[in-house]
């Protein structure tokens, strides 16, 4: 299976990169942009008996390593691996 994990800065946590990118978008002529938040996207391929088991394992991975809960939030989607 393939887990797509999104890790983003928590609300209220400074995101200087996002701020700098938002300013660049403004200067490129996108005044409608109110905020940019920059995070990480990870693809985790794993073996699992079923989706529920995979979810449990990936949640544990996020809690223990992939995200730092002091500064980041995470969410993930589990799907069948793409045919490549």
């Amino acid at each position, binding site marked *: 299976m393939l887990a797509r994990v999104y890790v983003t800065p928590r609300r*209220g*946590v*400074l995101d*200087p*990169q996002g701020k*700098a990118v938002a300013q660049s978008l403004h200067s490129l002529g996108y005044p409608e942009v109110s905020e940019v938040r920059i995070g990480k996207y990870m693809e985790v391929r794993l073996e699992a008996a079923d989706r529920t088991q995979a979810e449990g394992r990936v949640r544990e991975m996020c809690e223990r*390593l*992939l995200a*730092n809960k*002091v*500064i980041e939030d995470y969410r993930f989607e589990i799907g069948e691996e793409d045919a490549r």
Partner: protein
Amino acid sequence: MKWGVVVFPGSNDDEDALRAIRDVLGHEAVPLWHKASDLHGADVVLLPGGFSYGDYLRCGALARFSPVMQSVRSFAEAGGLVVGICNGFQILCEAGLLPGALIRNRSLRFVCDTAIVRVENARTAWTNRCRCGECLRIPIKHGEGCYIADDVTLDALEQNGQILFRYVDESGEPTAAANPNGSLRNIAGVMNERGNVFGMMPHPEHAAEKLVGVGEDGVKLFRSLIRHVEGGARASRVRGGDDASGAHSSARGS
């Protein structure tokens, strides 16, 4: 008194720390390889600066799962003295041994400079050779040194005297201009509530000899620790000192 200096792949200030301890202070120091779990009876464990595991994922995130860190965690939980400098500070935060986190500098730039830091609490194992309010000149060099925590945590740190250093200007004021990385409340170094684990972004090991620039202010921190360990509880006055020192000797004896 014996010092252990942890060496991770990507550590690059371990040699400077070993040199400061051995050549300047004349103490015994042993490198502790990240794959080994034996702390060799060290009285103090120092996590040096650098880029452990390439700073992959987040600074300090991978180092905390190394075998040596499992031992460092048990050592700290038993009251053993652990100090993290720069990347070592990041590792201690990632490991949950210190509150808060260190994120990208607000300027988005790596800073390499001499910081002035003000001693906020001199009644600790780490600062007992300093005066409260004293300003020290200590080098900094980091890209992810912006200390953050939620307001509740920050207020608790203030109330408990856990903030040991703040970035200040020449007149000793914690201004925004004197803050090199955007750290909340100008925080440059914090200890845990028990007082036996401490982390700071500036590098005292780089301010240990007149020969190399900014002076010798860093030596005061090393000497504070020596006084704490060798001078016993009378001179140290760590928060919960009796408890910490008792647990410490048992950890050393094991």
